[in-house]
């Protein structure tokens, strides 16, 4: 009898210990960070980590409307860089991104922002046709057009995605196929290779985790 009681006790103790080890998962922060001294609400000085954020931006979207970061502020969004005549990685990226879009279609807190790196050809009307043909048209997925400087700088410095013109590359441009996950405070929380299905699946899992961070 004593043996049974003690083994039950040990089992219950293990379960309690193991379940208490489960912490709330938080996504990492990407990019530069530095420590800053801040005063909290009570006026007490603390040292806080300040992470890299996406700066203010302003582009034309597929409806030729000036679209700025105001569209995405306070929302979780996924950014990528592509161009419509891309035959190498972009179709796969957007095919996979479509599945993410469909999963979060009804969630108003999730948006998608695709920037074109073909400033010569991908004018807003071209982006509009592309969006319609892809099967997404609406405010949830923004296709943005901007000058070479503004887009390329944003890509490389802020979203940490390499893009460039390359006359030797098949379509004339090279770029990485990352889907970058940005949180409601404009910080980079994830980067997923849009051509790899397992990474896209991970993105689908990480979005709810990120959204949950704001529910506390």
């Amino acid at each position, binding site marked *: 009898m004593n043996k049974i009681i003690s083994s039950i006790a040990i089992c219950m103790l293990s379960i309690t210990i193991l379940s208490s080890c489960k912490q709330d998962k938080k996504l990492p922060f990407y990019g530069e960070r530095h420590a800053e001294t801040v005063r909290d609400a009570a006026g007490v000085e603390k040292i806080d980590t300040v992470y890299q954020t996406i700066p203010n931006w302003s582009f034309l979207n597929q409806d030729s409307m000036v679209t700025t970061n105001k569209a995405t502020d306070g929302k979780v969004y996924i950014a990528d860089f592509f161009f419509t*005549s891309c*035959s*190498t*990685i972009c*179709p*796969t990226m*957007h*095919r996979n991104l*479509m599945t993410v879009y469909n999963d979060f279609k009804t969630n108003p807190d999730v948006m998608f922002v695709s920037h074109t790196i073909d400033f010569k050809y991908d004018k807003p009307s071209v982006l509009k046709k*592309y969006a*319609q*043909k*892809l*099967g997404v048209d609406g405010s949830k997925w923004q296709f943005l057009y901007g000058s070479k400087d503004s887009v390329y700088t944003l890509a490389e410095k802020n979203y940490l995605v390499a893009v460039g013109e390359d006359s030797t590359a098949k*379509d004339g441009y090279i770029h990485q196929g990352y889907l970058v996950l940005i949180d409601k405070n404009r910080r980079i929380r994830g980067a997923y290779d849009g051509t790899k299905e397992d990474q896209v699946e991970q993105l689908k899992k990480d979005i709810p985790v990120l959204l949950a961070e704001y529910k506390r």
Partner: protein
Amino acid sequence: MRKYIIHSIFLFTIIAIIISCQNQETIDLQNYLSNGKDIYKTKCQNCHGENGEGLGKLAPPLTDSVFLKNNKNRLACIIKNGISERIMINGKEYQEKMPAFPELADIDVAQVMVYITNSFGNNQGFVPYSKVSVQLKNCK
């Protein structure tokens, strides 16, 4: 009796020749399907999808057997040189620029063509690359 044996051996030889010819074509078909699938994965799957389902209205599906049959003599040209004219696939209109693939040799074009026309619900049999070479010479 001897006549009977000789006639049987003769008949048997003829049948064996016929069967082995068919087997050669089946072997070729399997070979083309296997290589064609690899080519499809690296060059075509991107836009046309793993199961030939296409991508919205940007890239048509490859499941319209009627289209493939009606255009069988220019499929090779489409694969090698791309296409940008308006086409109807499965009752829907498509007009987008499909890029060219000049790096594909005639045999590659033949293999991927045979793969596509015998996958995704299509079943259009074998086409030897000699025939594809002729078609490619006459592309408009």
